[in-house]
């Protein structure tokens, strides 16, 4: 009897413990004391400090030390490091296209089936996330090489609920309503949009987000996929159509704060300030879910700002497409410490810690939704997991020369007055040059 009770207790306790290790409990890892892992990524203040806090969980649990370094010109720096063989152990890529380049150069190591299985099990639509990090290595064989950590939803419009209330504006549910609302705002003497493309060496990327959202709302997802792989050329009339729609927003001096000239010269981090000035410089700002990190200090989600879904055309009947992106962590070194670090990132605890800090979203099914820093983010979580169509940011999927090169500069030229056809031809030429 005693023995039986002991065994029963032991079974109950151990299953309880293993449950807690899985269900958002604390991460425990092997002893890696004395080992050092270097991480390189694109995050600067304030996300870099947030990340350092998150990895401190790993450091405390395993005794290893993790060093993170970030850079504004990450896309160029990582190529230098990979070519010279001095890349960090783990690299945080903001673009799968760039990671694919790195893999083709032989710079990344496969992560193995254990980790792949963890993603398939733990992430909503796990297969899509696995597909997004499977690349051809230097021999041409497809390998699973990365794990997505920190994703964002892009099809969002940020606004000030108080300003909307003061002016009597309602949240539009269709694109036609949104355009009518913009016209109404102009008629009232307000400026509808703040748009800023500036980002140092990466200037132009916000315009590619606009393009992608519009592509998803003007054509079916198959067309989008063909556009990404260049099966459909960039200067196809369908792409030009989308560019003209973007132009109807960005090139319209009445629509944009500062006029179309300010679009390319305003930094993307300064652009949303227009929502909070007195008098308000603009009413709406279309941007991804990480932008609240750049809102004025002390702004509260749901009170000082909120978001609504960037609507689709009612007339086109394409459902509710959602554009998203994220950063993926890949390894250049397959030592035990780095592999364990990758497994750590798939545990709920680091995800929840980052969630509490704000500006963080994850497709991880096992996280406690209540740990999100605001109702807004819980809403975003639902958007992410419930879209009718979900597509990954196209410029991040295209090869680096386009997605981190000519697509960016082409869109800047477009806002400067270059014709849609010339811009598209130029980008298609760069596609042809690398084939």
């Amino acid at each position, binding site marked *: 009897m005693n023995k039986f009770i002991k065994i029963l207790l032991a079974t109950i306790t151990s299953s309880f413990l293993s449950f807690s290790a899985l269900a958002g409990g604390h991460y425990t890892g092997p002893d890696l004391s004395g080992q050092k892992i270097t991480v390189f990524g694109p995050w600067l203040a304030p996300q870099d400090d947030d990340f350092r806090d998150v990895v401190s969980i790993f450091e405390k649990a395993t005794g290893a030390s993790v060093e993170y370094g970030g850079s504004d010109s990450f*896309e*160029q720096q990582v*190529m*230098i490091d990979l*070519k010279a063989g001095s890349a960090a152990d783990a690299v945080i890529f903001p673009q799968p296209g*760039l990671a694919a*380049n790195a893999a083709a*150069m032989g710079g990344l190591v496969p992560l193995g089936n254990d980790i792949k299985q963890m993603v398939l099990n733990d992430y909503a639509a796990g297969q899509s996330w696995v597909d997004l990090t499977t690349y051809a290595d230097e021999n041409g064989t497809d390998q699973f090489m990365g794990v997505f950590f920190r994703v964002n939803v892009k099809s969002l419009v940020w606004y000030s609920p108080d300003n909307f209330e003061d002016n009597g504006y309602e949240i539009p549910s269709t694109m036609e309503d949104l355009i009518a609302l913009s016209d109404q705002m102009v008629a009232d003497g307000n*400026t509808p949009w703040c748009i800023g493309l500036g980002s*140092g*060496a990466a*200037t132009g990327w916000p315009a590619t987000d606009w393009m992608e959202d519009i592509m998803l709302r003007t054509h079916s997802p198959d067309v989008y996929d063909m556009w990404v792989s260049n099966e459909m050329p960039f200067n196809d009339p369908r792409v030009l159509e989308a560019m003209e729609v973007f132009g109807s927003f960005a090139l319209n001096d009445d629509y944009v*704060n*500062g*006029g179309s*000239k*300010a679009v*390319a*010269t305003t930094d993307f981090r300064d652009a949303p300030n227009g929502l909070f000035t007195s008098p308000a*410089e603009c009413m709406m700002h279309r941007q991804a879910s990480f932008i609240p990190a750049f809102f004025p200090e002390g702004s509260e989600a749901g009170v000082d700002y909120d978001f609504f879904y960037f609507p689709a055309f009612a007339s086109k009947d394409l459902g509710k497409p959602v554009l998203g992106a994220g950063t993926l962590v890949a390894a250049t070194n397959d030592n035990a410490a780095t592999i364990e670090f990758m497994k750590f990132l798939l545990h709920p605890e680091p995800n929840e810690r980052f969630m509490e800090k704000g500006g963080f979203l994850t497709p991880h099914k096992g996280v406690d939704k209540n740990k999100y820093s605001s109702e807004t983010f819980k809403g975003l979580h639902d958007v992410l997991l419930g879209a009718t169509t979900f597509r990954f940011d196209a410029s991040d999927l295209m*090869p*680096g*020369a*386009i*997605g*981190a*090169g000519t697509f960016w*500069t082409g869109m*800047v030229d477009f806002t*400067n007055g270059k014709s849609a056809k010339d811009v598209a031809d130029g980008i298609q030429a760069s596609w042809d040059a690398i084939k």
Partner: protein
Amino acid sequence: MSLLNLSFIVLLGILIFVSYFHFSNSFLDNYNRKSNGRFKFENSIRVIIFILPAFIVLFIFILYPVFETVRLSFYDKFGREFVGLYNYKWAINDPEFRRSILNNLGWLLIVPTFSTFFGLVIANLADRIWWGSIAKSIIFMPMAISFVGAGVIWKFIYEYRGPENTQIGLLNAIIVSFGYEPQAWLTIPIWNNVFLMAIMIWIQTGLALVIFSAALRSIPKEMIEASRIDGASELKIFFSIIIPYLEQTILVIWTLITIIVLRIFDIIFAMTNGEWQTGVLANLMYDWMFRGGGDSGRGSVLAIVIMIGVIPILLWNLHKHRQEQKI
């Protein structure tokens, strides 16, 4: 690495070089003395001792990359396949390349000329004034700021906001107070290059100023005093005495700044990243080398063009040096 370790290594490095020179030379002296001062190769070996360290550094960090670059310019983007003159043909036909060369020429013509001119004028103005050193220090200060730092400083001057909004850039604020419309200075074709050059002139004038100030001291004072007593105006003294005396210095400074300007990259990178047609060859090279996977073939061609640009100056300097040797 702790501060202690770091200072130790720095000191060690310095010590190594000092001892190298000291001991190799005294060793040679000893050897020479032992063979009764008749060591045949004494001169050659001493020369080798003197030039060896610098030459090694020169070779590894300059010469080897140069050869490697020339080699890469004949290969494809990954440096694997030989493609002959393909990259060169591409360069000649690329409109961006032609634009960059034009921009570089613009920079080479405008910046050295103005920097030298301002440096000369200010050196003379500040020469005998009691607050001259303060003035010179203020004008020299920008040289101590990194190019990227200068970019941040001038951002507050050139910044553009829409006509209905408050301006935060000084230039636009001044323009608006006179009733004109604000301009996005760095996007205006052609003129945006001039605005970027202004930053370089702002920095380099300090260099010219300092060298001219030193050179001014070498002009015999008696000549200037004499001409003053004779009734010559300051302007006449400037043109007839000072300029001829400083001719050599003017040319040297002008060359120096030209060489610095040929490599210009940081300012343009930080302010516009080559957008709006402001790119120079160095920006283009950076783009091709590191953006989106990198194309080392094309990047190398651009690097070589930059180097070719300096050959005329090189030859001229060599010529001058030879002339001086003969004197």
